[in-house]
């Protein structure tokens, strides 16, 4: 599992009216198998940082360094989840899930890919749905499929961009618990952007709060709740303390 160094990363958007700074220089380390959540006001550059981590955009300055067991590597296997499920409507559920395998290991026999996809669909509770079409399933199910797709190629880094932002409150809570369960069995380095403080505390080892644009870090705390966690931990006193602390820092 890798360690990720964010080294003096800053970013500005170039527009005709001039440069808009989005991220002030950021410098921090994401430890291996850490579940890191990033919170902050809308439009503060959280998603931009995620895209930089995914290699989708080049930061204006600075860079990302990956290390696996102390050795520098160029690229990581990345799994990504978006605000919308972002599935391909022309593929069935199982075909959507095995897409990363088709791209990463095209030589693998199709039956092996299908078998792997089905087994990961089981872990997200979608056993028996594999041949359904995307337009036949609910939003919550679609996000489970997206989670399965993000995990199937055993990514070294999982990037979640408000993964449950488009779901209703109840589905959202249960999906958070689902993710907690999956992550506790398949430990990975995770960076999640979210708007939900309780989701962040429930899932994370560490929470970073961004300020308004141009963003800098206003809070960087470890969540020392015991693991494995369960949904009931939301009602504990420590949970409320963390929640209060994070809420105050966002309000600043």
């Amino acid at each position, binding site marked *: 599992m890798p360690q990720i160094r964010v080294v003096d990363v800053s970013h500005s958007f170039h527009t005709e009216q001039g440069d808009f700074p989005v991220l002030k220089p950021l410098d921090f380390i994401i430890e291996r198998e850490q579940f890191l959540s990033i919170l902050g006001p809308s439009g503060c550059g959280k998603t931009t940082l995620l895209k930089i981590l*995914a290699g*989708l955009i080049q930061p204006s300055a600075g860079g990302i360094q990956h290390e696996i067991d102390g050795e520098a590597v160029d690229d990581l296997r990345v799994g*990504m989840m978006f605000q919308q499920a*972002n599935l*391909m409507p*022309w593929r069935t559920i199982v075909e959507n899930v095995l897409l990363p395998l*088709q*791209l990463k290991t095209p030589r693998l026999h199709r039956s092996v890919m299908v078998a792997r996809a089905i087994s990961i669909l089981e872990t997200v509770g979608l056993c028996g749905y594999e041949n359904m079409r995307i337009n036949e399933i609910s939003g919550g199910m679609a996000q489970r499929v997206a989670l399965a797709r993000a995990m199937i190629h055993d990514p070294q880094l999982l990037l979640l961009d408000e993964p449950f932002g488009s779901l209703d409150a109840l589905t959202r809570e249960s999906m958070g618990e689902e993710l907690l369960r999956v992550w506790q069995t398949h430990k990975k380095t995770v960076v999640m952007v979210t708007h939900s403080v309780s989701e962040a505390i429930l899932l994370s080892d560490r929470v970073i709060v961004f300020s308004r644009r141009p963003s800098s870090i206003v809070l960087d705390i470890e969540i020392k709740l015991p693991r494995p966690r369960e949904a009931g931990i939301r009602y504990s006193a420590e949970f409320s303390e963390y929640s209060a602390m994070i809420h105050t820092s966002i309000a600043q």
Partner: protein
Amino acid sequence: MSRWRSPVAAYTALVVILLSSWYIFTAVGQYPDFILPGPALVWQRFQTALMKGRLLFHFLVTLWEVAAGLCLGTFFALITGYLLSKSRRLENFLSPVLVASQAVPIVAVAPLLIIWFGPGLFSKILVCSIIIYFPVLVNVVAGLKSVPTDLQNLMTSLNANRKQKLVWLEIPATLPYFFTGMKVGATLSVTGAVVGEFLGADKGLGFLINVARGQYDTALVMAIIIILVLFALVLYYLVVLIEKIMVRWKE
């Protein structure tokens, strides 16, 4: 109304109404055959042209021109469509040129193509491909541009190369748009081939119309027009059928 729910029944009724009003019109009016022949005469003329004349040969010539023109036009539309959607600069440069080219009627360009490429099949194939090029191109560009950004990001985050993006994302996402263009193009292509044949050819249905018209063989002209209509219809529904098979997920 329930009797008209089946489209087959409705179409049969429409055809019967058209044919019978045509028949009554000619029977009452007693027009000379070279002005307006009745359906029976047209049918008779069709049969003799098919059995004793070379109607089938001329039809096959037109069919070949249309098929080749469709393939050629679609091929170039796909390639330019892909390039245009990939390069903003190329698109900005070429868009006005392409739109301007549409302002020139094909009937005006066709004689030039016949002068340059001769009265043979090739000039007809060219006319045909030019006429279908634009609708296919416009739809392919629109399709490629409609590919969701997040899916593109997903592919990039999985280090997909250009070919993988094309095969797994861009082609499937563009197919519905492509078929919309093909439906327009397929019907236009018949017009294209006939226009080409009209202006200079020694075979094909367009040529045959010209000959029949010169001989005041109005029955044959009408028979060929009906054949052309049916031909375009079959082509259209062929595209619809292929679309149904390839784009099942849209339903």
